[in-house]
């Protein structure tokens, strides 16, 4: 997994509430057995017109945000289906972090497992970031994970909270399975006792 330390780039505001994973990655892109090609599917019905041309009204099709490294998102982003394809697609177009007020639980975990930083702020903080990043001239921000800060184009710095466990895993790009399997013996002992105490689970 790609480690996350300090990342700078433009941030695209997508502020509608409840943007679901069906909208982020529609069904016709879910038929693979690998992770490839999901950049094409990302926000497909928002990004493209019926003619197949990019919709110039959609923010990621506009020059200031076409290379965005961040999305500034509305409440409950990523709700609905568990499809991790949504996060794979975001990664494949170069999104490194999402900044919002709340994220759906499964989506939030999927981000973490793929090295995409999901930052939760207050509504007021989000409004401050959205106001600046909506303007092409001030759309660039810098996210500093070690310091837990977001630096805005006007020089303001916004701090954010993150669990230490999640932070370390993102900073180091840790393989979660390898880390867990270091406790294999402990899991085995737990399992033996658990199944002995609840023999109908075997």
């Amino acid at each position, binding site marked *: 997994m790609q480690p996350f330390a300090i990342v700078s780039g433009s941030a695209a505001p997508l502020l509608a509430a409840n943007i679901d994973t*069906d*909208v982020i990655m529609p069904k016709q892109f879910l038929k693979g057995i690998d992770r490839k090609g999901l950049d094409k599917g990302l926000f497909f019905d928002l990004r493209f017109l019926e003619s197949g041309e990019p919709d110039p009204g959609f923010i990621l099709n506009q020059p200031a945000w076409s290379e965005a490294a961040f999305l500034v998102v509305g409440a409950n982003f990523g*709700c609905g289906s568990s499809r991790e394809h949504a996060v794979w697609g975001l990664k494949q177009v170069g999104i490194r972090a999402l900044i919002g007020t709340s994220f759906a639980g*499964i989506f939030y975990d999927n981000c973490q497992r793929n090295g995409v930083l999901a930052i939760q702020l207050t509504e007021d903080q989000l409004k401050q970031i959205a106001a600046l990043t909506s303007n092409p001239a001030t759309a660039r921000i810098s996210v500093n994970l070690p310091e837990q800060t977001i630096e805005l184009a006007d020089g303001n710095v916004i701090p954010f909270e993150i669990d230490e466990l999640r932070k370390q895993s993102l900073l180091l790009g840790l393989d979660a399975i390898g880390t*867990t399997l270091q406790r294999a013996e*402990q899991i085995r002992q737990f399992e033996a006792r658990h199944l002995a105490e609840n023999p109908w689970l075997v």
Partner: protein
Amino acid sequence: MHSPRTLYQKHIDSHTVCALDDQGHVLLYIDRQVANEYTSPQAFSGMRDAGRKAWRPSATLAVVDHVNPTAPTRVAAMPDAGGARQVSYFEENCRDFGIELFDVLDKRQGIEHVVAPEQGFILPGMVVAAGDSHTTTYGALGAFGFGIGTSEIEHLLASQTLVYKCLKTMRVTVNGLLGPGVTSKDIIMALIEKIGASGATGYAIEFAGPAISDLSVEARMTICNMAVEAGARGAFMAPDDKVFAYLQRKPRAPQGQLWEQAVATWRGLHSDEGAVFDREVTLDVATLEPMVTWGTSPDQAAPVGGHVPDPAAQPDLILRQGMQRALNYMGLEPGMPLSDVVISHAFIGSCTNARIEDLRDVARVVRGKRVAAHVRAMIVPGSTMVRDQAEDEGLAQIFLDAGFEWRQSGCSMCLAMNDDVLAPGDRCASSTNRNFEGRQGAGARTHLMSPAMVAAAAITGHLTDVRTFALEA
């Protein structure tokens, strides 16, 4: 002595291998996993690449459900190359990793969350995770189920555990008893409308109260299933005698002495007197009306006797814009009576509402009637066993006589990953769980409601209060 604990805390305590920090992260042991063909392939590929074996293959049950066709005659072949590749890779993975698979021709095949309970694969007190958000369904059995992504499926296959952050707890007490024609679907839709699509984000919900006790186990599954549409990462209920009676007949439930021992343990699965929840919500359902959605988020719902709301009355700019966008997408005008909304399709199916009791509800509404001439009406049973039972009970003939398509089992038009897809502009009364933009097909419009309400709409051709139908007992 423990201080009083919630049911959630009991499940977490009994499944914690070890604490990982002091911020609520634990290594959580998972008793069961259900796998499907579309969210699992990359997890198995990761296992292959790393040369890992499944930790405990018997803990996983694999079912083909998302991509298979539901045409009335069952065939093994998938109609599209992508679906065919997913199914064949799934078969290969299950064989190589020693996991039991119900393929499309298996008599036990169906939607994973219908199949696992009917097999007795899910039992009270279990913690269950699966690569599908509606894994919350299992809460109706007193198991704690939750959805996970593909990376977590791989983690679980490899270690039988997940790195898990403990949730806050919410108790939803449902008082009053439902009137005739009002169902558990209406309870959960009313709750989502009340607390919002993220009202339970970060929470595990425990449902309690007389209205819940009064429901059948299958009706409770509908509630736990859709709790994820309010953001709940898990939702459950203390198991009672109804749950034990439901399970006792199931193929994989424990037998004899082991059954007695299990039930004795399961009787302790309830929140202790005096246990404290982070949030308490109360819902009175004595006067609840059947609910329908008018928008593109499950919380955009109203009683069927109501009207399409006016965005102008919403003071918050973001919410107002969201409502406006939803009404544009849905092709509805503010102030319009919901019962004036004319449909083109009626769909009865999904892990939310395609069990035998749902089909009996539908039969009571449509017996001796005909689907409106302009409506295409489909019934997709939740499992092949449900399909067989409905045929044995004579329900299938009632549906066919009324003009419904009687199809094979699968997820089907709930998410339209197979070939059951609506066209742009189609409007569907649907017994499913999500009315998102494009969910049932790009540009298609979904109105969520109970199976009985879908049946009523199919007959009249527009959204209709099912209570205006004379229901047979």
